């Protein structure tokens, strides 16, 4: 008797490829959001798998806050070169210069929230009707309520209390002019699944995810990377530590973890043993209990 049981990583892969192909079929001008973090790297890898040997039939788009780990930008540009992918970069700085948003001031200032305006402007400018993101339901409680195909009104807003029912694997991407969809192909993946898949498929990731020595400082229970645009409080001091990133985002709100994990096996073991969620190190979520839900309603990723 042959075994026809699909194991979890293959089943998740099959589901995501199905979703990505559905986006390419149902929408006229889709785009894939790419941050340079592991989730968007895996999502883009799945897209290449979905259309091989043809090229991925949509561009990638990076919303650049200007507050990056420089390794992320290098990785992004190298990946584009290697795969022939088209990457559009939209700068939050431009949105600020245009006077559409005002930069936050003070110690915890971040451009995280400002990204929403840049993103919505870009969607409008390029007339994108679907934007795929690497959000996962296990990341955060508001994300746990998210659909694969998530409708956005003409203002880019999410109405969590009035979402379209999503049954079986039938996705309804119909919309009116000016509206768009956010699609989350890796909704059902957990942090562990992502690492296991990277390991199984041997996917390249930025070396920020592995242990390295870095200048950091400690704030409210989170280690943050030191950078020229980060203002220190009087009692905070910069020190050198061996750290790695568990998530990569805007440098002002991405905490780093003290870690000696130097290989994917180490990371997988560390992930299995950890008692804090990966967004536990995300400063942007700590602002209030419903920080993510509020940002998402406005049009955040």
């Amino acid at each position: 008797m042959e075994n026809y049981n699909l194991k979890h990583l293959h089943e998740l892969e099959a589901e995501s490829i199905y979703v990505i192909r559905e986006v390419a079929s149902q929408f006229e001008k889709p785009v894939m959001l790419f941050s340079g973090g592991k989730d968007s790297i895996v999502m883009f890898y799945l897209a290449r798998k979905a259309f091989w040997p043809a090229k991925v039939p949509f561009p990638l788009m990076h919303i650049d806050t200007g507050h990056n780990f420089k390794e992320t930008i290098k990785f992004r540009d190298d990946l584009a070169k290697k795969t022939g992918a088209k990457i559009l970069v939209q700068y939050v700085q431009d949105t600020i210069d245009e006077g559409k948003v005002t930069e936050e001031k003070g110690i915890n200032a971040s451009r995280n929230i400002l990204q929403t305006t840049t993103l919505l402007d870009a969607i409008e400018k390029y007339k994108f009707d679907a934007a795929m993101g690497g959000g996962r339901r296990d990341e955060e409680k508001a994300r746990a309520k998210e659909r694969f195909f998530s409708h956005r009104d003409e203002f880019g807003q999410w109405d969590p209390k009035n979402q379209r029912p999503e049954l079986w694997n039938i996705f309804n991407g119909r919309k009116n002019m000016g509206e768009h969809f956010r699609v989350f192909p890796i909704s059902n993946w957990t942090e562990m699944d992502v690492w296991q898949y990277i390991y199984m498929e041997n996917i390249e990731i930025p070396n920020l995810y592995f242990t390295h020595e870095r200048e950091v400082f400690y704030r409210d229970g989170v280690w943050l990377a030191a950078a020229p645009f980060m203002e220190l409080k009087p009692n905070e001091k910069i020190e050198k530590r061996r750290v790695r990133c568990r998530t990569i985002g805007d440098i002002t709100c991405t905490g780093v973890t003290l870690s000696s994990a130097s290989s994917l096996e180490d990371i997988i073991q560390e992930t299995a043993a950890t008692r804090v969620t990966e967004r536990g190190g995300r400063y942007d979520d700590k602002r209030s209990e419903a920080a993510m839900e509020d940002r998402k309603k406005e049009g955040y990723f």
Partner: protein
Amino acid sequence: MFTDNNKQMTKKSGKEIGYLDMELLRFTTAGSVDDGKSTLIGRLLYDSKAIFEDQMEAIELASEKKGEDHVNLALLTDGLRAEREQGITIDVAYRYFATPKRKFIIADTPGHIQYTRNMVTGASTANAALILIDARHGVLEQTIRHAYIASLLQIPHVIICVNKMDLIEYKQDVFEKICQDTRDFAAKLDIKDVRFVPISALNGDNVVDRSKNMDWYDGPTLLFLLENIHIGSDVNHIDTRFPVQYVIRPQSDEFHDYRGYGGRIVSGILRKGDKIKVLPSGFSSSIKSIDIMNKSIEKAFAPQSVTITIEDDIDISRGDMIVKENNGPQIGQDIDTMICWLNEKPLVLKGKYAVKHTSKDVRCMVTDIKFKVDINTLERNVEDKVIGLNDIARISIRTTKPLFYDSYRKNRSTGSLILIDEATNETVGACMIV
């Protein structure tokens, strides 16, 4: 510089790097806070270490703010502000946990009748349903409703958790009576596999660890069941159906003549060399290759996403279906379905709707409403033809083009379709083909 993963890794066995090849079980839970549903999920997550310190900290804080004495585990699953404020589950929430044996996706749904559509949504992709019964109250209307939904959506395994056993002094006869009452009405339903577990979610009896208070029970614990229920046969591996989702034409120098058909095998198995038939054209050919990125495989099976190429040059596009030559679906435009209505605006007899069925888009007219089901009593009502939000009914539709379908009972993919309101674009009906 790139990190060269090849150099860092020496492949170890699956066990050492965290179980690369586990089975995935999707289950749904229906119930209200009163049934102890949230406590049960909280316990499963907590005992399997899927609740993290910062999550715990956050809900401790939130519970305190609301002036509650205990840490309210329901706050873990109720993710929206409105849900936390009102203390109810409104929508489907997805939760994830894993044990060394399996990975689990929980579709956590509210249990009250006004949320039937959410239960149906959660049930549509589930391998198993957990139904909670309060041991003090026994089988209630809502138990029948939850079991009916599991039956209607053809969830292969149903686990009845008789909860709050601690409040009835862990009495065997109470448990036995509830099992018997459940079997009595379940006989009228179409459920293949029903199990019963006496538990106390609050104290943890028979959830993860075996209870010391119920020596008379020698069956498995709930987690053991979830880890060991045989799900290999849940997918239809007999009737091969491959709805073409996306045509892949690289038009590059290297792959000048490549023409691949991307899609998901929704049921059955495909092998290289298999004789196939393409619907609706009816042309025959055979499988030339099955590709997943830069490697070709000999066979693929549901629910894999693959790209196939065929020997002959036939016109094939999205919405077509590739099947085995000797095993085809039904083809037709007049279709009878059970429907769960999902929208505040009632179903319109003779109304026109957009239809999505596998990768095919057509339109339809509702030609008949046969009966409505009272989901609390399972009685059929042929008089009341008003089908509103959360109602379940049997209807007939006529589609603008033929669909390639199977009965839902035989095939959950080719047997399901959704109706869309063409004015609002909302998904208004979930249909299971009879």
